[in-house]
């Protein structure tokens, strides 16, 4: 036994080498290695690949590289569990910079088990930056192993190895610690080790996530950040990968070998000062991270409660940010990468688990972030922060996405309420609103791959099909209340009163995650984008701008969760112009290349449209795939309508031109629905036109040509659809 409590020698005795690859170590040059690493866990091949000049010019890095490599690896009939599917982790030129907050993100792409199209996740932790400084701009993992394997990238010695690893844990909070104990050469070296892992839940559910670790030397614990959306953890365990591990110990402020280190530091210092000075008066990210949003969303009727039926609850104060602030440890540097003064990765230490296989253990829980509070709290009617914290912990260590688990559980609870489910169908679980113990037990059953846990683990789209086929449930009802689009569960905002956000969610390429656009305030509260054209412009600019973070390896949060003191006096405060200028400055400081605002959007537009065509190539990405469930557009039920009857009656009268007096509620629900669905059709038309797509949502040849991505293989996908 080691000091860590693990029998590392015993674990190592069970290892069996599969293959090894030695490579020449080279310094990063202005943010790029210009090579990627290919690992096939099925046949043991390991190789480095050069990055072509065209790939660098057109795809920039990060998500762009990941998608380009994935396109070349798969074919139109590839399914998520086919061996040719890949998990690609790519960083981008700015990634790894320690001078500007939020510069340590990795972008992960794969063909998703729940959507069948490319999914992308932006995740913190040390793995991506260490991999980059180990020598590679991206890691491409293909194949399926017969037995559990670990891939170890030793960036200090220039060796990549695959070995069978039968004894290591699967659940991430244990495995990440084992990897640190196994590969760190001494105490100081622990912070140089980072791993990627999933968990036992990811073996039994389609909603698996990946955990990227970072060793917190003050807490002396390996902490976890999630690449949550779309089931990449499920792909990971299907490939029988236990962990990807990297070691790199040479990090310093110039590891990116930037073109202008002094300029980079100067721009970074400006933001450091801004955050330290203003954050406690603005979003309190340093105190409690994104969980500060809970009470704000509740106040604006945007916090999902009871499967997105409503946007607020009298019980919501139980989940407000102060409740979680009292549970997390303060005064520690909580950045998920070095140099991030925003430090929003909060953690509760010594949290004693009340349920499950680790019951009684005292653990460090990373989070919860806002999405987890809403998904595993208000949306399922749970207002006990300890239950939310425990769901958060187990989702993470089981390798399950808290957003998809929350939205799926909310759907289960509404199906229970509507009589689709009963205890004979759930294996005795009383899935009533607010039943935290039942939600935890459901989660453990997913972890064990047992009974109704296997059904819930299918996610919302899978459950809709299952309930219709096995229980005779009404497919139309299930479609209306099952909050998924393209197969991905919605993230945690009520979009009923914002047409622009309905589009921001449902037109998002990978499915309804809000990382392309969050327009609810701009649309619903500020009333700033009243026309279809205004909304279309916002649904062009923000998805393009926000895509850029994923090309560079940047976090979105330091863009607009902090603002300069004089931001109010700028002509477009919603875009935070000074921060946009910062991004152009750090891009130039790292790469040496000039970039203006138009160039930034153009970098993104290339990759965005490439991803759109990729979705079409895989069988989705058409107009029909951008249609939301009505629950995300308006009141499905009489109960929902009558809860906000004044609002809806007023809309019928003033917007639809119908006098609601004398109408029954079902009639009013139907009239409002017809109006809202018609407006959504018009929004689709306006947005597609603005993006240079045809009425079916297919990029035109002119659009692809203008962006310089009119490759033969790309045109081959769209041309038959443009006639």
């Amino acid at each position, binding site marked *: 036994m080691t000091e860590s409590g693990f029998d590392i020698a015993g674990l190592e005795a069970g290892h069996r080498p599969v293959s090894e690859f030695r490579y020449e170590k080279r310094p990063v040059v202005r943010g790029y290695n210009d090579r990627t690493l290919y690992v096939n866990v099925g046949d043991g091949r390991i190789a480095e690949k050069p990055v072509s000049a065209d790939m660098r010019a057109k795809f920039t890095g990060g998500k762009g590289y990941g998608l380009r490599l994935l396109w070349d690896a798969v074919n139109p009939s590839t399914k998520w569990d086919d061996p040719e599917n890949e998990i690609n982790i790519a960083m981008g030129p700015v990634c790894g910079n320690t001078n500007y907050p939020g510069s340590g993100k990795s972008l992960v792409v794969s063909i998703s088990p729940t959507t069948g199209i490319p999914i992308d996740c932006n995740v913190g932790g040390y793995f991506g930056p260490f991999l980059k400084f180990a020598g590679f701009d991206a890691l491409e993992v293909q194949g399926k192993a017969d037995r559990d394997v670990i891939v170890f990238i030793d960036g200090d010695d220039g060796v990549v190895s695959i070995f069978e690893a039968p004894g290591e844990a699967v659940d991430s909070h244990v495995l990440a610690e084992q990897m640190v104990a196994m590969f760190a050469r001494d105490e100081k070296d622990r912070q140089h080790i980072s791993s990627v892992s999933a968990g036992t839940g990811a073996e039994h559910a389609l909603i698996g996530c990946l955990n990227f670790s970072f060793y917190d030397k003050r807490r002396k614990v390996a902490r976890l950040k999630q690449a949550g959306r779309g089931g990449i953890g499920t792909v990971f365990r299907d490939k029988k990968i236990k962990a990807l591990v990297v070691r790199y110990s040479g990090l310093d402020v110039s590891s990116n070998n930037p073109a202008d280190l002094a300029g980079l530091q100067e721009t970074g210092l400006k933001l450091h000062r801004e955050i330290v000075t203003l954050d406690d*008066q*603005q*979003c309190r990210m340093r105190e409690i991270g*994104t969980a500060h*949003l809970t*009470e*704000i969303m509740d*106040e*604006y009727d945007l916090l999902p409660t009871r499967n997105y039926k409503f946007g607020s609850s009298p019980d919501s104060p139980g989940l407000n940010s102060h409740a979680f602030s009292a549970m997390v440890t303060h005064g520690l540097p909580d950045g998920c990468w070095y140099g991030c003064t925003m430090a929003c990765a909060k953690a509760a230490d010594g949290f004693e688990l009340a349920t499950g296989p680790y019951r009684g253990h005292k653990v460090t829980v990373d989070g919860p972030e*806002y999405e987890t509070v809403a998904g595993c709290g208000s949306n399922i009617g749970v207002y006990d922060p300890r239950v939310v914290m425990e769901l958060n912990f187990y989702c993470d260590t089981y390798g399950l996405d808290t957003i998809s688990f929350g939205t799926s559980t909310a759907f289960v609870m509404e199906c229970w309420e509507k009589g689709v489910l009963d205890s004979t169908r759930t294996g005795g679980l009383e899935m009533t609103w607010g039943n935290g113990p039942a939600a935890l037990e459901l989660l453990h059953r997913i972890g064990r791959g047992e009974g109704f846990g296997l059904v819930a683990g299918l996610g919302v789209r899978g459950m809709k099909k299952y309930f219709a086929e096995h229980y005779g449930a009404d497919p139309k009802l299930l479609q209306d209340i099952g909050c998924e689009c393209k197969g991905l569960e919605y*993230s945690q905002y009520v979009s009923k009163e914002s047409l622009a956000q309905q589009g921001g969610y449902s037109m998002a390429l990978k499915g309804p995650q*809000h*990382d392309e656009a*969050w*327009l609810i*305030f*701009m649309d619903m*509260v*500020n*009333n*700033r984008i009243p026309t279809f054209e205004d909304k279309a412009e916002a649904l062009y600019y923000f998805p393009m701008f926000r895509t850029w973070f994923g090309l560079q390896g940047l976090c*979105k949060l330091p863009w*607009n*969760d902090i*603002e300069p003191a004089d*931001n*109010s*006096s700028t002509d477009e*405060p*919603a875009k*935070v112009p000074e921060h946009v200028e910062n991004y152009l400055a750090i891009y130039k400081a790292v790469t040496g290349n000039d970039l203006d605002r138009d160039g930034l959007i153009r970098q993104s537009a290339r990759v965005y449209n490439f991803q759109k065509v990729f979705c079409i190539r895989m069988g989705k990405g058409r107009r029909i795939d951008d249609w939301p469930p009505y629950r995300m557009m308006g009141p499905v039920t009489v109960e929902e309508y009558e809860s906000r009857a004044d609002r809806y009656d007023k809309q019928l009268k003033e917007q639809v031109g119908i006098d609601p007096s004398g109408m029954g509620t079902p009639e009013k629900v139907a009239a409002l629905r017809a109006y809202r669905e018609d407006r959504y059709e018009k929004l689709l038309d306006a947005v597609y036109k603005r993006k240079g797509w045809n009425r079916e949502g297919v990029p035109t040849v002119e659009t692809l040509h203008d962006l310089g991505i009119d490759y033969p293989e790309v045109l081959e996908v769209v041309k038959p659809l443009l006639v």
Partner: protein
Amino acid sequence: MITVNGSPHPWREGMTVRDVLEERRFTFPLLVVRIDGRLVPRGDYAEAQVPDGSDVDVMHLMSGG
């Protein structure tokens, strides 16, 4: 009567920007407030008077996500 983000809102004597924000339950911290196009600094909300008939624009910036 005043207008707040395009919709009518009752006015009263001595009304300040903070009053408007409280009555509309605008609790989000990242706001940009303009009265008839004139920017009101964030530190002045408690004192800044809102004249009858004015057009108050309360822009909520984005955060989260």
